[in-house]
């Protein structure tokens, strides 16, 4: 869950990190409330990257310019996303722009500090210095200092960066953040100021952070209604533009089947992984969501169950098929723990359970071309 810049900066400030004194602008009229100086920066609050290059940050010299820029920004889209708000801040002159971030590094199994002496919009092209920390208590200022002293000549600045990295790492652990990225980190009179903040929180840690839980719930209300219903019921759903509905189990297997559908010249209508809620209620909801979507021509049920015992799934499926009032064709391919009992249940219900995935996809293909 990526925090918007304004929330990220508030979090940084609460931990003693210097950030500009800005104000949130929820609608253009809020510009009147701005008591800070001009020139000011007006920044679109979006979660997509590359905002700067896409014109999402405006320098404004007067309230009139600020209003005009606000109108334009509220009306813009950044990678398909409209800004939920704008942030207005003093436009600060600075000597240098640095890059500093804390990330989680899967290969190393912990946190890493990334630094580049050249921050700003083109960071993707840089090769940052990487200090692999691991668990946070392994952080050693002297190891980072040794690394930075090769990338950065200003020794007094090195000390400030080391202290800032330590602070940002604390922000990461304390707030369960997976990324705490400051780009640019400005140098003003030798001191550091975070001009931007990209903080990604760990949604899995919502049970110990009321703010993550609230924000996740809030964002679901902004998802397409059917995706929200799925997520609310522990079904992992990503909606796609396709005609083959997919009810599946397991992330990797779901993607493998999507790839097979695509390889057969069809388009999957969704990623829909029911393995976190393999109950009658869960599967019923999955069918309801796909049945009501007119773009979907056929449904493939593909489950290779380990923890999910497919005899139970088969029983659920036969019930759902009996009750269901939708004519969309459904093709089954279920395998895994309990498969012998599952086959018997399906046969008894007069349903065909394909033995091989290839056969199931071919069956869908045959239907799909007819649809």
């Amino acid at each position: 869950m990526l925090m918007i810049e304004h929330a990220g900066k508030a979090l940084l400030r609460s931990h003693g990190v210097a950030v500009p004194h800005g104000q949130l602008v929820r609608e253009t009229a809020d510009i009147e409330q701005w008591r800070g100086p001009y020139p000011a920066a007006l920044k679109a609050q979006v979660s997509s990257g590359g905002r700067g290059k896409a014109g999402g940050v405006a320098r404004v010299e007067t309230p009139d310019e600020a209003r005009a820029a606000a109108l334009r920004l509220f009306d813009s889209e950044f990678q398909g996303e409209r800004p939920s708000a704008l942030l207005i801040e003093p436009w600060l002159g600075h000597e240098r722009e640095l890059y500093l971030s804390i990330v989680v590094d899967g290969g190393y199994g912990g946190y890493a500090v990334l630094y580049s002496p050249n921050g700003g919009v083109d960071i993707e092209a840089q090769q940052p210095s990487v200090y692999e920390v691991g668990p946070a208590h392994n952080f050693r200022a002297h190891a980072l200092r040794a690394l930075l002293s090769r990338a950065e000549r200003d020794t007094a600045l090195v000390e400030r960066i080391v202290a800032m990295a330590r602070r940002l790492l604390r922000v990461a652990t304390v707030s369960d953040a997976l990324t705490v990225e400051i780009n640019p980190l400005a140098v003003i009179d030798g001191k550091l100021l975070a001009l931007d903040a990209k903080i990604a929180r760990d949604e899995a840690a919502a049970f110990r952070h009321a703010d993550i839980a609230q924000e996740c719930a809030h964002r679901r209300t902004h998802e397409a209604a059917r995706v929200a219903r799925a997520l609310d019921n522990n079904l992992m759903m990503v909606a796609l533009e396709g005609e083959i509905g997919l009810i599946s189990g397991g992330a990797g297997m779901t993607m493998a089947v999507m790839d097979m559908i695509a390889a057969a010249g069809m388009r999957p209508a969704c990623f829909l992984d029911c393995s976190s809620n393999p109950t009658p209620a869960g599967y019923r909801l999955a069918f309801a969501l796909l049945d009501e979507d007119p773009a979907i021509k056929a449904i493939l049920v593909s489950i290779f169950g380990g923890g999910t015992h497919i005899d139970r799934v088969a029983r659920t499926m036969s019930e759902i098929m009996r009750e269901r009032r939708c004519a969309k064709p459904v093709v089954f391919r279920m395998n895994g723990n309990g498969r012998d009992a599952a086959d018997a249940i399906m046969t008894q219900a007069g349903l065909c359970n394909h033995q091989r995935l290839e056969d199931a996809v071919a069956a869908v293909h045959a239907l799909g071309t007819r649809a």
Partner: protein
Amino acid sequence: MSVLVDRASRVLIYGIAGNFGRFSVRDLAAYGTKPVAGLAPGRAIRDVDGVPVYASAAAACREHGANAALVYVPAPMALDAVLEVIDAGCKVIVYPGDGLPVQDAIDMRAAAREHGTVLVGPNTPGVISPGEAKLGFMPSFCYTPGTLGVISRSGSLSYEACWRLSGEGLGQTTVIGIGGDPVKGLNAAEALELLHADATTAAIVYLGEIGGSDEDAVARYAARPDAKPTAALVVGAAAPPGKKMGHAAALVGSQADSQAAKVQTLRAAGVHVAAGLPQLAAAARSALARVNK
């Protein structure tokens, strides 16, 4: 032969009184692996199907010589449960749960490494050495003994893949589910080292997906002059960028995360990459054909 588990494995089941625990008591025993003791914190239970329940992992290990553990607890309790079995001396631990905060995964991993313990998971079905032993809940019928070492980021994909390999006569030494989370107790590079050191494993099959950096580790391994021949499948070609596909780590953020980029990196390192599931067995066969050449 096998890695991580074998006929000497004596399994402690943490959370033995839940659905998964009760299933594994029967399922492991049916596979010839001994569930010797269990834990059921908060429940006043003496045994599950004859397997005794203890108040602490230390007591279970002391009384029954448990040396491996299967930990079925919800995410908020997972770090504590894993720390307990590490302290109790289990040297192989499988934690299958998903939804674990990454910070807890980092702490688990660090604690395990400090104690010389191998932690498999989170978000994994576990480890199986066909015909030898299992420590997990994968469907046993998918597996047959053989010479392929298998590593997978995805549970159900590994069942499907091994079921296909077995059906084509391509048995396995050990199948390791490393899991789909960003921070893993055992990552691809470390799982590869285990299989590399295993004399019976002739070739390696890797089942990857979009996102993360494990595929880079596989490519680095395959590029080594002493590497065992390696085949791979990477799923997620049809996944849109910027969306998390179920697994916490399965997200195309940058170009390097995409299925196409990963396939290219693996092929450049000499890995036999299958175009899709239907081509996996052929890729594995190609890898095996290179053994001892």
